[in-house]
């Protein structure tokens, strides 16, 4: 796959600006900052996939270079089926009497007050204290079983009690900037990084009024083109989207 090194982009930009090699480190710094920022929104080769083992207390340890999750999936033949993220899983560890970490018990065994329990599950004041439906139950909320959430304090994935896989496949974003090998980017990113460098150099060198704004406009335009190129959509994809959006329905 054709790539372009950040070193070459920086040298190109120095040539564009008519500057000697003495400005290389300043320009490289701007280029690295830009790459770091772009990698948060675009796949600059920083989206990784790993298989994680699920512990007996329903957690999996996140990789050290994890920034954010793209998908947590289970293997299904040749496909990966995504788990659903929910935000109400308890992130605190559950421990037995000897202090060992254990999974939380299943929901069914929790003996809450009926009103509290039903209303919490159904998502609104739809039951009375005897568990009788009082109306206004517009649409039942589903209760997904294969769910996960992220425990940022302990850098772990937390799974629901009903998630019974022993391995999950994690697709995640890591930082886009390497500090052990020379950075390379897609040729699409060449112009946007170059324009960012010029803009930041104009700012750092306290350019005359208007020069920074012009450089900024150049950068924003280049970023728009970059975004369009990275998210190109062809006829087949549009057709597939329409077809996927059409489902059978009950006839009245």
């Amino acid at each position, binding site marked *: 796959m054709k790539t372009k090194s950040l070193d070459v982009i920086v040298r190109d930009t120095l040539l564009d600006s008519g500057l000697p090699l003495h400005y290389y480190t*300043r320009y490289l710094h701007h280029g690295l900052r830009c790459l770091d920022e772009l990698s948060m929104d675009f796949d600059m080769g920083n989206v990784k996939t790993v298989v994680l083992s699920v512990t007996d207390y329903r957690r999996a340890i996140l990789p050290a270079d994890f920034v954010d999750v793209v998908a947590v999936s289970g293997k299904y033949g040749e496909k990966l089926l995504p788990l659903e993220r929910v935000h109400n899983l308890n992130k605190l560890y559950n421990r037995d009497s000897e202090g060992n970490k254990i999974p939380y018990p299943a929901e069914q065994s929790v003996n809450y007050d009926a009103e509290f329990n039903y209303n919490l599950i159904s998502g609104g004041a739809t039951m009375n204290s005897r568990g009788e439906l009082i109306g206004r139950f517009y649409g039942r909320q589903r209760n997904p079983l294969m769910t996960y959430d992220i425990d940022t304090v302990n850098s772990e994935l937390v799974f629901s009690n009903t998630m019974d896989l022993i391995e999950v496949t994690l697709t995640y974003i890591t930082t886009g900037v390497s500090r052990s090998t020379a950075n390379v980017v897609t040729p699409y990113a060449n112009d946007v990084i170059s324009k960012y460098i010029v803009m930041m150099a104009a700012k750092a060198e306290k350019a005359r009024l208007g020069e920074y704004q012009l450089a900024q406009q150049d950068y924003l335009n280049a970023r728009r083109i970059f975004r369009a190129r990275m998210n190109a959509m062809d006829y087949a994809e549009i057709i597939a989207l329409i077809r996927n959006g059409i489902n059978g329905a009950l006839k009245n």
Partner: protein
Amino acid sequence: MTTKNVLSEQIQRIYARFIDKENLSDVIDTREINLIMNQSINKVLKLQVADSFKAGLVDVPKCNLLEYTCAVTADAGNNRSYITLPAIPLTLPMDMGIWSIAAATGAMTPYIPIPAQDVLVFQGANLSYLEGKIGYYLQGKRVYFTKNITLTANGTVTSVVVNLLVMDFSQIGDNDVLPISPEVESAIIDDVLQTISNGRVSQAELASKQQ
């Protein structure tokens, strides 16, 4: 094209003819003129570079660069190496007085110059990796490399070629072509004459002062 001898003789003639009209035989020693001329060229050089910077051109006059070969010394304790500068270059923005440093066998792949003020700041930042390249920075009379370039992994470099922007008369023979731009020759002559005529008076002026 001019040489040290041509310039100093011209200065002597002008000095003898015009500065002290009543004492034509009074000439100044060539060694003294050379010393002042060396200082004057560096001054004019700095002004010349400053003028081009002011005009928006970030560059140095290449014909003024002097090339030296320097031995590299390892500083293994700090995982770096250094050379001792044979001459102190002009002080320019981004340390451009040191125009380039390259391994003796790698003239077209020079090391990366790092402005001295940046080198301590970027430790720990992504920039410190320098995309795997080796940089250098100035500190006093020494130039330090960011890696120990004497090691096999870094090229086993024992000497480097350094291009400095400075006038160093010790490197130039009396009749060698003087590496200065022709357009600054007259400015140098004027400046040297100005310096050596400072505080000098003619015999007539001296006599009138004594009266």
